């Protein structure tokens, strides 16, 4: 089971280390992690995606919650959550048609084209991890030179 965890943590040095250390020490997996400051500079929001069965996920949430530096730990319901990751792709262009083809795919996924050169172009994509994986499959035949993915950022849609 894939799970999205949303953590509000104190914005202090060493917190990211402690969180990742907990995952290592307790034998949990981090699929992706993204961190950024919130509207209140005292706190950061961490979004961690992870895999595990229901029991393991419950245990991860409890162990994170037990940490003194975490102010709030929630497992987000995928269907009630807006979650996206930003990805940058550098794609190889081998012939004249390639650029047009990649452009088409990019448009279909709502991506943006950057830095078009004779032999490469860059794509900026904001999507769910599944969509990003699908996009990656489609552009793979052209030749992917490099990829950078931020990991998921997520917020619950409802107020609660």
């Amino acid at each position: 089971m894939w799970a999205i965890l949303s953590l509000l943590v104190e914005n202090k040095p060493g917190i990211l280390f402690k969180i990742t250390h907990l995952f290592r020490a307790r034998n949990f997996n981090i699929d992706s992690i993204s961190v950024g400051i919130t509207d209140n500079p005292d706190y950061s929001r961490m979004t961690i995606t992870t895999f595990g069965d229901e029991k393991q996920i419950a245990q991860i949430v409890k162990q994170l919650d037990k940490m003194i530096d975490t102010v709030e730990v929630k497992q987000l319901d995928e269907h009630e959550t807006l979650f996206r990751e930003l990805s940058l792709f550098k794609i190889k262009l081998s012939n004249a048609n390639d650029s047009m083809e990649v452009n088409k795919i990019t448009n279909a996924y709502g991506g943006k084209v950057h830095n078009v050169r004779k032999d490469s172009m860059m794509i900026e994509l904001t999507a769910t991890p599944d969509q990003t994986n699908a996009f990656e499959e489609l552009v793979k035949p052209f030749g992917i030179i490099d990829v950078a993915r931020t990991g998921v950022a997520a917020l619950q849609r409802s107020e609660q």
Partner: protein
Amino acid sequence: MNKMETMIGAKALMTAMEKEGVKQVFGLPGGSNLPMYDEFSRCNIRHILARHEQSASHMADGFGRVSRKPGVCFATSGPGATNILTGIATAQADSSPMIAVTGQVPVAMIGKDAFQESDIIGMANPVVKYAYQPRTAAEIPEVIRKGFYIAETGRPGPVLIDIPKDVQQNEAEMIFPDEFKIQGYHPWTDPDIIAVEKAIDMLLHAQKPVILAGGGTIISSAFAELQSIAETLVLPVVTTFKGKGAFPENHPLCLGSIGMHGRAEANKIMAEADCVLAIGTRFSDRSVGTFETFEKGLKIIHMDVDPAEIGKNQTAQLAVVGDVRANLRIMVKLLLQKSLKKSDDSTWIKHVRETRSYWKENLKIHPGEMGAAKILRKLRELLPKESVITTEVGQHQMWASLFYDVIQPGTFFSSTGLGTMGWGFPAAIGAKVARPDVPVVDIAGDGSFAMTENSLATAVLEDIPVIVFVLNNATLGMVAQWQRTFYDRRMIGVDQKSCPDYVKLAESYGAQGLRAQSMDELDKAIKTALSSDVATVIDIPIDPEEDVLPFVAPGTSLSDMVLPS
């Protein structure tokens, strides 16, 4: 609002600790904690000099477990700090309140690989409840206040406070706060009445109910409540090894500790039970054997102050989160209100009684005069019931579990989680500082005692007369037993060859050294030690071939227990 005072960081540290009620610090000085040490000349806190930082941390741990107030240890930076890591990890594994204060290189030198610099905050992270590194002197009062609060509330644990040398030396306007806020820390201590009601219901409807009392029962001193519930509902009580002595072991309902070297009657009854009220336990593998077998056919009511323990190792049918004592109090009250009382002639309780008396009479013990069971029963016979016991780690520890009955609850302490050899003696010193009025005995083996034996200097020079009771088989006995059992008697690295001579060693430190080679000599030695006002080592040579039995082999379940033949 508290008035401000100008002082240096080191003085603020000592002042803040005095406000927390600290009367003594166990430690060792060095380059990076000299400013703190200088303050001992100007404050009312006693310094107790250890001969190794690890021992200082175990002393603080022993003090903390007995007094239930954080014990404090000091160490310098670098190797001083890394030396206390074992003590911190030991305290964390057994939920013992501790404050470890380390010196650190000056702020500007951090990260420069300075002399005696170690990233102790990074290293200690997984084994502390929390860690602070104040970067300015003015932070110190609040850090100490919060550190003590974290260490002693909820599920207790060690807090590390790493103070750079310049932060100790710098002057600042200090405010010693009464009020403070730790936003992400809310120990869940309130009782859960609804859950307790359900728990009573489950216990009443079970055919073969049992109470499993863990270390949390001792930490929260829920002795009277536990006894009242056990007696009212006529429930047999088993304990984990850490929970040993949560319930008087001479009580007719008490079966003793379960586990790898649990008592036969305890393991048998635990394995047969259909419902367990598990109090303050984390279901360690050493206590329950294989997780899958243990929980099979067993309804678990899990009572714990740490919500993360629920469902970690065992699936609970009912969780009762909160302070164990508070929840048990509610249970006592509800039982009284509903005047619920169970008859004591059920088939189950008859069976429990029979099992108990059968194994009390029929467990085969070592036939020799100086077998472990006889030695420990002799010790029990001669010690006042309020005596405090610590143990080292190994065969002697498990023999203590099997053959030494704790009568007064909360008087038995051991490194049960991390299993730290060398813990018992310095912990006994800490315990004696907390309870100078009672005899304190470290039940030891020669292998474990060797690891921190230089604490004899502390016991003698600081006038802390504890008794070290060495079951000396001249062997790393537990390892030897496993080599005999699982490695076809290939005995590698276990022979200590009776080196050193513990009587002479004790004497060389100015302690009393006694040797007991017969029951008569043992009787005399224990009496002599109890009436002496100097630390005493009693060296008791025993058979190196004696095994600890019963034994639940790793990866098997309590019902697979191997019994002495």
